[in-house]
């Protein structure tokens, strides 16, 4: 956002340097893991760790999308309510019984959700690029819109999956595992691999970074800034939809509070992962690590008995700042 200036003066580059910056979030995570083990030995148990990783799926997947938006110099505050909206419409679709056969229905519903997500992203993208309004305002607006639509669809209550057999069929998408690895963790990995490929290995990814780094230069180089930015919002929408696909089988319902504050968590994960909010840098794996860090902090809070219930928020806030300090001091090598 701000901070457009790079202090060339103080950061010199060497290979060590680059590596450190990329590993910094992982080091912060390792420190947290050690801390958690000290606080409560149960923490490092395989079950607990799998739980934590599995839960981090929603934020991780959404944050991978946010990595694109932010790298391209945008911002999306609407992802939380977009999740609720996509989940709500998807469940309503499944409840409508529009398709015969459970498996067919489930597949169609998934495609439907992806479509809704992409459309939501498209709306955000077009409004920021063609309307030329600060993404902060646009997505704050759509945040209200998606949330209100969900409430409207739920008529103030919640939208729950009705058919029990469909639910049973869908359940393994969150609770199942393949060779002992929970499905959501596999989904994170697949999404991150595709995203990393897209961002680092394709010309689209290159253009994303260029647009975030200097819009004018990108434009002069024949890159359609509007197209690239809009595409990042669509990717964000798709990621939200994928997160929803994993989310719905877990709780089987969408409520007006679904996805509340996920936008802040997603952005935090992105920043902890080493992506700069001003754009021009994108680190997919760092983002995933950032999402896991957030989830681990929450987990440690529940497992520990150190602080009063009232103060958990304070400790959580402090840990995130400290994690960031660890990260920064590492990447500055001083």
């Amino acid at each position, binding site marked *: 956002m701000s901070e457009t200036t790079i202090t060339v003066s103080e950061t010199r580059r060497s290979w060590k340097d680059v590596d450190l910056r990329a590993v910094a979030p992982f080091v912060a995570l390792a420190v947290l893991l050690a801390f958690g083990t000290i606080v409560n030995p149960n923490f490092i148990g395989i079950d607990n760790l799998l*739980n934590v990783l599995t839960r981090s799926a929603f934020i991780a997947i959404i944050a991978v999308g946010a990595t694109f938006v932010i790298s391209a110099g945008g911002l999306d505050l609407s992802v939380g309510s977009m999740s609720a909206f996509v989940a709500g419409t998807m469940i309503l679709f499944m409840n409508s019984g529009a398709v015969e056969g459970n498996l067919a229905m489930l597949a169609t519903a998934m495609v439907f959700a992806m479509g809704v997500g992409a459309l939501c992203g498209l709306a955000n993208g077009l409004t920021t690029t063609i309307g030329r309004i600060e993404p902060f305002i646009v997505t704050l607006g759509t945040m209200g819109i998606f949330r209100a639509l969900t409430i409207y669809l739920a008529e103030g209550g*919640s939208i729950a999956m009705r058919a029990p057999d469909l639910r049973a069929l869908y359940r393994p998408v969150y609770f199942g595992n393949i060779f002992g690895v929970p499905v959501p963790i596999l989904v994170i990995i697949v999404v991150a691999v595709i995203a990393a490929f897209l961002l680092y290995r394709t010309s689209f990814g290159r253009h994303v970074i260029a647009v975030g780094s200097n819009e004018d230069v990108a434009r002069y180089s024949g890159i359609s800034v509007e197209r690239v930015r809009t595409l990042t919002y669509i990717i964000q929408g798709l990621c939200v939809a994928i997160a929803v696909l994993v989310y719905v089988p877990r709780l*089987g319902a969408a*409520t007006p*509070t*679904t996805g509340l*504050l996920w936008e802040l968590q997603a952005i935090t994960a992105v920043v902890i992962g080493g992506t700069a909010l001003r754009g021009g840098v994108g680190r997919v794996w760092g983002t995933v690590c950032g999402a896991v860090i957030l989830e681990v902090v929450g987990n440690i809070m529940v497992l520990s008995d150190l602080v009063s219930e009232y103060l958990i928020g304070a400790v959580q806030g402090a840990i995130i700042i400290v994690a960031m300090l660890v990260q920064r001091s590492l990447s500055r090598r001083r």
Partner: protein
Amino acid sequence: QEQKNVTIAVSIPAADHGWTGGVVYHAERAKVALEKLHPGLKIVVKTSPDGASQANALEDLTTQGIDALVTLPHNSDELTDPIRQVKDKGVFVTVVDRALSDPSIQDLYVAGNNPELGRVAGQYLKDNLGTGDVVVIRGLPIVIDEERQKGFDEAIAGSNIKVLDKQFGNWSRDDAFRVMQDYLSKFPKIDAVWCQDDDMAVGVLEAIKQANRSDIKLVIGGAGMKEMIKKVADGDQLMPINVLYPPSMIATALELTVANFYDQIPVRGSYVLDATLVTKDNANEFYFPDSPF
């Protein structure tokens, strides 16, 4: 007496407004009292800001090994499955306030009665006001709010009570103040106000006071916040009654659950607390000056 080691987990919403604050307060207080009473007892209280994180907390609590779970779920639809998972591990489950979609999961159900809260308020209006124009300030658009609203609507159905407008006050004093100010600008005559929660009533009263309007005869809150109970006890003109919905129900649930382990009496079934109508006559019974709510 031999020492018996029991671990009970309490999972409740974070203290994000007055009533939930009261729940956390009573849970913490009951924890201290009960742990003192039973040396082997360990009670772990965890709060969560939303349904998804409550599901997380349930997983985390279960991994630590617990004997019983006392939970006030954010949302029944969402949390039925996560609580079922806890149950499947052989844990005794007590559900407070919001019944699960599948009631077979809960060993014990201790509840306030949300539709009843709305119904009692509506009934009182119907009986005491007869005819008149009412404005409603709802809480947040979630199930509890919907249930209370439904109960209210059913109670006044067919009467001459007319609902002029309904808006959300988000269970916040500030938002209720704002909505009430706007109602006062919008409607030249309002006979009564029903807001679902005493926190919001604070804002409503202040807005009425500022506007110097004399047409409003009644403000009905709910949930039994101590300041409001005091008003009722003192015979306040504008606020003669309150409808109880005590956050202390969490303590009741905890006590019952503990009894199940220590008093050798199996405790099962449903305990539905009344949405008691608090009037000047019985107000002193419900006034707890030390409570934060």
